């Protein structure tokens, strides 16, 4: 489990305490790029749209640099052995997201429909709040195993968060999906936070129950079938996902939670049968709901025939949206290298151009090359998360790390796949890129927890107590 911490020597009992490389300087160097790239991109947008370097370049660069710097210093102090890639990658995505949100702020069309205008400032504020939460996670969560104590409280909290949008007067219905709540003028997506809290619950629950789930099973046709009573938890989670789908009409959130649970169940039990069950159940649930829930059904129709959906929307048929086709045109018009930042026309997507559909702007203006780079950055974050799970020494840490990374991967897949027309559209946002406070804040907390687990995982084993018999094998320190 801890083989990754000391690759240079296997004599861990005496050498370990010298200190494995912490990689903090690597992280700092990467952070310089993660701040510099968005600053150049920002200048590029200003030059393309207004012909001048934007006036806010300095304050923007300083703001992002300051946030990244604070993050780095806190990691250096409180999680010195953490994975060096997570913070720079998240900073880079967040910075690029800010640039493109600012770029869409310049669109008069989006301003006129109140989708854009001053949103970049808000997003910078949300980023600051996200970093603050990130800092709090690292400062106050000295050991991720503390979270294990809150297993069942987490369950209650997660259910509470998930059900919030259904509370009358609090929940909002935005274009058919009911995943927002409105508090004092702010709209919050509780699902983004529920994702993390639920991962904590699953990790705690499965850690305790995994032996029962894994061992008490019958073998049938090469698969280990779980006992009927052990099917309970998966059925409950499945039912909750279906309920979310039916009442909040959000395919994405539903798929995300169920997928996360199946992944964690599989890791906990090492039983492939859970994957088979999970896939069958999610397929049955999705098909069942899609066939009788009109909003979900319409999303599927729009996915199968975006051009027909566009034509219906143009004709003014209520409930249809041209967004899916507009997004495809944005991607296609970008081509291999893109039009260049600030020179595309992704404002044609109109509603949610800077949130759910922000990837289309990247696609049009940075092209295939840009999108591939961004997808690889997401992939890298996920793989660093799974790597953390591999390196973690405790099962709770492993499960939590793989749950969070798996959920992150599923979210990226569901959103990017939806915008690119690979799967039906859902109402979720690209982590870090998209405009939206809940998303940014929750994902910074997610990165904070991953960094915490990775710090614990990569931390060298505590040095053994001085042994008087060890005199003959004293090591000469360089």
């Amino acid at each position, binding site marked *: *489990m801890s083989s990754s911490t000391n690759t240079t020597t296997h004599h861990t009992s005496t050498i370990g305490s010298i200190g494995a490389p912490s990689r903090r300087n690597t992280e700092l160097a990467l952070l310089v790029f993660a701040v510099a790239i968005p600053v150049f991109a920002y200048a590029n947008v200003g030059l393309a749209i207004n012909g001048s370097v934007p006036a806010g370049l300095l304050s923007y660069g300083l703001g992002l640099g300051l946030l990244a710097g604070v993050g780095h210093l806190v990691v250096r102090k409180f999680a010195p052995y953490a994975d060096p890639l997570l913070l720079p990658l998240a900073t880079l995505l967040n910075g690029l997201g800010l640039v493109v949100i600012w770029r869409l702020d310049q669109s*008069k*069309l989006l*301003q*006129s*429909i109140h989708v854009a205008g001053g949103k970049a400032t808000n997003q910078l504020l949300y980023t600051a709040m996200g970093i603050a939460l990130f800092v709090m996670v690292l400062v106050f969560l000295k050991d991720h195993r503390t979270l294990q104590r809150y297993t069942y409280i987490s369950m209650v909290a997660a259910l509470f968060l998930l059900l919030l949008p259904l509370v009358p007067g609090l929940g909002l219905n935005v274009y058919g999906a009911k995943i927002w709540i409105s508090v004092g003028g702010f709209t919050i997506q509780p699902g983004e936070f529920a994702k993390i809290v639920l991962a904590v619950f699953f990790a705690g629950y499965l850690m305790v129950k995994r032996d029962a789930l894994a061992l008490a099973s019958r073998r049938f046709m090469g698969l280990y079938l779980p006992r009927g009573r052990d099917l309970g938890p998966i059925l409950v989670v499945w039912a909750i996902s279906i309920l979310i789908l039916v009442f909040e009409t959000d395919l994405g959130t539903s798929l995300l939670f169920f997928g996360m649970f199946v*992944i964690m169940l*599989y*890791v*906990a039990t*090492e039983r492939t049968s859970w994957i088979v069950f999970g896939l069958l159940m999610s397929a049955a649930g999705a098909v069942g709901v899609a066939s009788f829930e009109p909003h979900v059904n319409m999303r599927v129709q729009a996915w199968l025939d975006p*051009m027909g959906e*566009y034509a219906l929307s143009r004709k003014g048929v209520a409930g249809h949206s041209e967004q899916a*086709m507009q997004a*495809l*045109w944005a*991607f*296609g*018009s*970008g*081509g*291999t290298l893109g039009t260049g930042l600030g020179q595309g*026309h992704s404002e*044609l997507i109109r509603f949610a151009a800077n949130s759910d559909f922000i990837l289309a702007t990247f*696609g049009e203006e940075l*092209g*295939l090359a840009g*999108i*591939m780079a961004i*997808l*690889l950055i*997401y*992939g890298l974050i*996920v*793989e660093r998360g*799974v*790597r953390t*799970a*591999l390196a973690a020494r405790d*099962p709770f840490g*492993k*499960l939590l790390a*793989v749950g969070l*990374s*798996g959920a992150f*991967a*599923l979210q*990226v*897949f569901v959103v*990017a*796949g939806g915008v*690119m*027309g*690979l799967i039906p559209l859902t109402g979720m946002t690209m982590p870090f890129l998209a405009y939206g406070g809940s998303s940014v804040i929750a994902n910074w907390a997610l990165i904070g927890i991953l960094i915490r687990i990775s710090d614990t995982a990569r931390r060298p084993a505590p040095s053994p107590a001085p042994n008087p018999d060890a005199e003959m094998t004293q090591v000469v320190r360089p």
Partner: protein
Amino acid sequence: MNKPLRRIAIFCGLLVLALLVRDNWLQYVQADTLRSDTENRRVLIARYSTPRGDIIVDGNPITGSKKTPTDSLNDFAYKRTYKDGAMWAPVTGFASQAFGATQLESVEDGILTGDDDRLFFRNTLDMLTGKPKQGGNVVTTLNAAAQKAAYDGLKKVGGKGAAVALDPQTGAILALASYPSYDPSSFAGNSTSVDSKAWTALQKKNNPNDPMLNRALRETYPPGSTFKVVTAAAALENGLYNSADENTDSPLPYILPNTQTELKNEGNIPCKNATMRVALQFSCNTVFGKIGADLGKDKMLEEAKKFGFDSEQFTPVRSNASNFPEKMDRPQTALSSIGQFETAATPLQMAMVASAVANDGKLMKPYMVDKLEASSLDTLTQTQPEELSRPLSEKNAQVLQSMMETVVQKGTGTNAQLPGVTVGGKTGTAQHGLNNSEKPYAWFISYAKLPDGSSPVAVAVVVEDDKANRDDISGGGLAAPIAKNVMEAVVKSKK
């Protein structure tokens, strides 16, 4: 627990791979299809993102481009403007952000927007040097003075009508006017309050005068007596008569063959046994009706087709095909030969008839684009005059010229006389509608010949007069003065 973790890592990798594959499909394989999809608004945005090239007459642009404020409602940067839009509309057509382009604006759209393949090399150079893409220019053959004379003349008469002037030696179109007309600037933009309103008001269902109809190219009228020039040509070409001054042995009254119906002349005119010259001078229906019936429909049709009837012309703007009926009995052939029954011609067609006679029997293909230029003013293509057909021998053409000149010297077309210039012409008054209930059309076709024998202009004018009473309408009275002014303008500009 590490084995399933590794598998999850692979699974997450596959998710990202699926996205990468999809993205390559979208942004590489499908990119061109999506990018050039006509529903993709970016196509239009790009189209109006640079100033459009100009349409040029006599070295001066008659069009322009105006930067429009781009705001939330308008994402098109440039819109079309027109100088004397109403006068030039039959030439230019329109290019509107909201309603697309027609006629010359549409036919030469690739050059005007700069998207044409012939501009590819220049565009690539411009792209490398960082210059924005620029549209090329369309240089027309039109003559501004002639166009103005034609449009002002039609406007003064006030009825619906059209005028076309050609250079008989090349086929170049010198004037192409239609009245009532419209200003294409009025709906060149994209605003629902201004442009859509102007557009709606111009539609035929809201405006019975149908100002957007290009009457010079796209409307056919019964040509009436002007068609007698074609019939005379057929008689000469088929050897029915060998000179203009040979007696035609025509009876008066003339009963249409196989019927008891008498074909009448307008008024009491000396048509009995008249020569073709006299018959054309007084516009005898009896003489030319009989010629048509004697020649038969096949010979008449053959001659009409040689003049361009029954086929569309591409100038490059398409003109409607004029009609000479293919299935007729003898009395119908007689009626068709005096421009009645189902015979119908565009003003361009009748101008072609006059120009073929003036050019000693050689019909040139009518064209209005002299050359296409790149924005650097380098010529991309130059139109070469092209012979379309030879409806008459040189000798017969000269016989017909002398007949038409008699019409202007002492016949129905005296209003078209020009000092110092030999003018040949033919009037026409075409009745139409059930029992001739609707207002007749006044026609006049003519050509001018300079003392050196060259013929710089042939004209056709058609006017429907709403105000005058029926008896006053005649080609000589209404249409001939307009034709005269157009010819005068061309002759003056030649000097």
